[in-house]
Structure formats: structure tokens, C-alpha cells
């Protein structure tokens, strides 16, 4: 099951974008240039209520765009992407920030890790903190990261060195899980807990990142306090909660209008699990 021909995998890059004009076109182009080229990466830009030219820029590069009628926040945008991936039969979905922080050049490496470690990994994510992060990460950010890292590593029983990294690639099981349930804001840490609760396996790949495309980090000081409190509460409550949505729940009613062109997509996913 795990040795699907690489060229038959349907690959989707989800690019959440909120007022990322000036950046998003380049991100889309960079993704399209990555291996494998043959079917290649489809790019979905989820426009989260932008008021600038994000949509036009993305479309000019041939990306599919879906647009929220108003801003839902990063969690809602990502979940829209996963719902799209699920409805359209994608085998792999990767999230790449629209602000240029994530370097698409790592996509092949991540995809290889997802495939070659197929028996062990349902999600591969790029970590900045096992080596050189590639840019100067603010101290506060690093400290917060360390706290989450310690807590998550303890809960999951494996080292999670960069729990706030949003550079993530999942297989079909990950897509199904996230399409059904995805945290609202600051979703990265909680998403790892969700994977863990469903016994989906996580694998790390070393990456470097760019500092945010624009100077504005999405997290400043008043917010970082909220961030810490919110995520720690979510972790704590998450431990008390039974699995958010059991993986064997009946599929959500996402209509599949178009049967995938190749008949191969139907059986992918659901591979040999326990």
C-alpha cells in the first residue's frame, strides 16, 4: 500500500493567505517548480477575506483560489484547504504560508520523508530548531516554543522540537482528520495533539525558514500572552477530552462532484493500520 508510484500521487499545496499581495504569487510559482513535476503540485490559495490583490495574484499564477466571505483566522483557512483536499481526492496535502516564510524547496524532501517513512509517518513537518533555523528567531518566540516543545514531547512520547511550525505535510489520513476538525486560532500545537490522540504518526524534517515576508510577525507581545494561555488551556482540556472526532466516524458529507480523472485515487490512503 505504501509503495504507490510517486507519479500517481495527487499532491496539493494549501496556501492560506490574508492580505499577502506582493508575496503570494512568488510562493505559488515556487511551489509549482518543485519536484515531482509530472502531475506536480496543485496549489490552492485559501483567501481568508483579503482586501488586497491576493486573489488576483494567485490566479495569475494559475492557482485555484477559494475565498472566505470574511476573515476566519488561520485555523479556519487551513481547514478549508483540507476540506478541499478531501473532497477532491488528494493523497497528500502540505501547508505553505502565503507570506513566504516556508521555503517550497523543501517540499521534495518532505514528500520523500512522508513516503519512505510511510509506515511511520502520517505527518511530516519542517522543524527549525534541530539545526540552524535560517533566520533569527525572536527570543520570546523561542522560549514559548521551548515550553510547548517540552509539554508536547512529554504527552506524545516523541521529540517535538518545533511545535509551532506551520510547515506541514500530511497523507490521506491526516487530510481526513483535519478536514473534520481543526483548531480555531494558533492551531499548530493543538493539531499535533489531535494527531497524537488519533495515533497518527509524526516525523520531523530539518528546514530553514525565512523571516516573515513582511516585518509584521503575526504574534506580538500582548497576543503572545494570549497565545500561551490559550494553547496551554487547549492542551490541558485536550487531555481531559476524549478524541475530538473518532477517525472511524462516518465521513462528513462533502459532496464529490467530480470523479478524479485517474481511477487510482480511490484506494489510496487507508493503508495498513493497526
Amino acid at each position: 500500500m505504501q509503495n504507490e508510484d510517486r507519479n500517481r500521487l495527487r499532491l496539493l499545496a494549501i496556501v492560506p493567505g490574508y492580505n499577502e499581495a506582493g508575496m503570494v504569487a512568488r510562493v505559488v510559482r515556487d511551489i509549482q517548480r518543485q519536484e515531482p513535476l509530472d502531475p506536480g503540485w496543485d496549489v490552492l490559495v485559501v483567501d481568508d477575506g483579503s482586501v488586497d490583490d491576493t486573489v488576483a495574484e494567485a490566479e495569475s499564477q494559475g492557482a485555484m483560489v477559494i475565498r472566505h466571505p470574511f476573515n476566519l483566522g488561520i485555523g479556519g483557512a487551513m481547514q478549508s484547504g483540507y476540506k478541499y483536499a478531501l473532497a477532491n481526492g488528494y493523497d497528500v496535502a502540505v501547508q505553505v504560508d502565503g507570506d513566504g516564510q516556508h521555503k517550497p524547496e523543501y517540499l521534495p524532501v518532505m514528500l520523500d520523508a512522508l513516503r519512505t517513512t510511510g509506515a511511520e509517518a502520517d505527518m511530516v513537518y519542517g522543524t527549525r530548531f534541530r539545526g540552524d533555523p535560517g533566520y533569527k528567531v525572536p527570543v520570546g518566540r523561542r522560549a514559548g516554543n521551548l515550553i510547548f516543545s517540552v509539554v508536547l514531547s512529554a504527552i506524545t512520547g516523541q521529540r517535538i522540537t518545533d511545535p509551532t511550525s506551520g510547515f506541514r505535510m500530511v497523507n490521506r489520513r491526516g487530510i481526513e482528520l483535519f478536514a473534520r476538525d481543526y483548531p480555531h486560532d494558533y492551531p499548530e500545537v493543538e493539531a499535533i495533539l489531535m494527531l497524537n490522540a488519533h495515533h497518527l504518526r509524526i516525523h520531523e524534517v530539518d528546514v530553514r525558514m525565512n523571516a516573515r515576508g513582511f516585518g509584521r510577525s503575526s504574534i506580538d507581545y500582548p497576543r503572545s500572552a494570549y497565545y500561551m494561555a490559550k494553547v496551554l488551556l487547549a492542551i490541558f482540556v485536550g487531555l481531559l477530552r476524549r478524541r475530538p472526532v473518532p477517525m472511524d466516524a462516518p465521513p462528513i458529507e462533502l459532496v464529490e462532484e467530480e470523479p478524479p480523472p485517474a481511477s487510482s485515487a480511490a484506494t489510496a490512503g487507508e493503508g495498513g493500520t493497526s
Partner: protein
Amino acid sequence: MSAASQVLGAVGDLGVQARVIAVVGTVLFLVLVIDLVRRRRLVERYALLWISAAILLVVLSLWGGGLRGIADGLGIRTPVNALFLLGLATVFVLALHFSVAFSRLSEETKILAQEVARLDGEQRRLRGTTLSGRTLVNGDSPEPAEGEGEKSPERSET
């Protein structure tokens, strides 16, 4: 004395002025609530909550015996403090209830927005159009012009 004063409670609880204020205030409040329902600014479900809460509080402020009983039960010396406590507790519970309702609404709103976005994307895919041509923001165009105005140069999907 009379049955009336028996019902209205005895000295030491709430003075006459306080009771008048409680009754007048509650009546005004009830009128406001009912008017909001009349103008469809408030659904009956929440109106009932507020009406019940208001009635409960005004009954307790009039019926000294009941209030004193509750105060004794709670171990509160001054009955009027029991009234404050109950009023505060009622407001807390209502506020929590609304937070729960807001949470549910925001979840539902999120799902709706995602569905709208998905359907919108699906429709554009079927029509072979893009968003870029549009000038109206946030999809509030009454009806996209049929056939023209949205044609896009190229779509390279599938």
C-alpha cells in the same frame, strides 16, 4: 397585621422605596424585553430567559418571607445580601450561557463561510471563471452577470 403586610414581609428587609424601585425597574425591563421581541430584535428563547430572571428577582424583593428563608438557608444574615447574591449568580449563569451560545454560533458561522467559499470555488471551476475580474468585495454581488465580465484569460487546471 394584615395579610398584605404579611406577604410583603416585615420590617428590616427591603424598605418600601426599594420595593417600589424594584417593581418599577422590573416592569420597565419587561416592557423593554417584550418590545425587543416585538421588533424581532430578540428571539423568544432568550426573552424567556430574561423574563424568568426578572420575575424571580422581583418576587424575591417583594416576598420578604421567601427571601428571608433563602438567606437563612444560605447562612446570610442580611436578607438583602441574599438578593444581591442571587441576582449576581443569575447574571453569571446567563453570561456563561451566552458565551456558550456565541461559541456555537462562531463555529457554525465558520462552517457556513467555508461552505460558501467551497461552493463559490466550485461554481467558478464549472463556469471557467476567476475571481479577479470582480470588483465587488465579499461576494455581495446580487447576481453575477451572466456570461460576461468575469471571463478570465486562462485557467490551467486539469
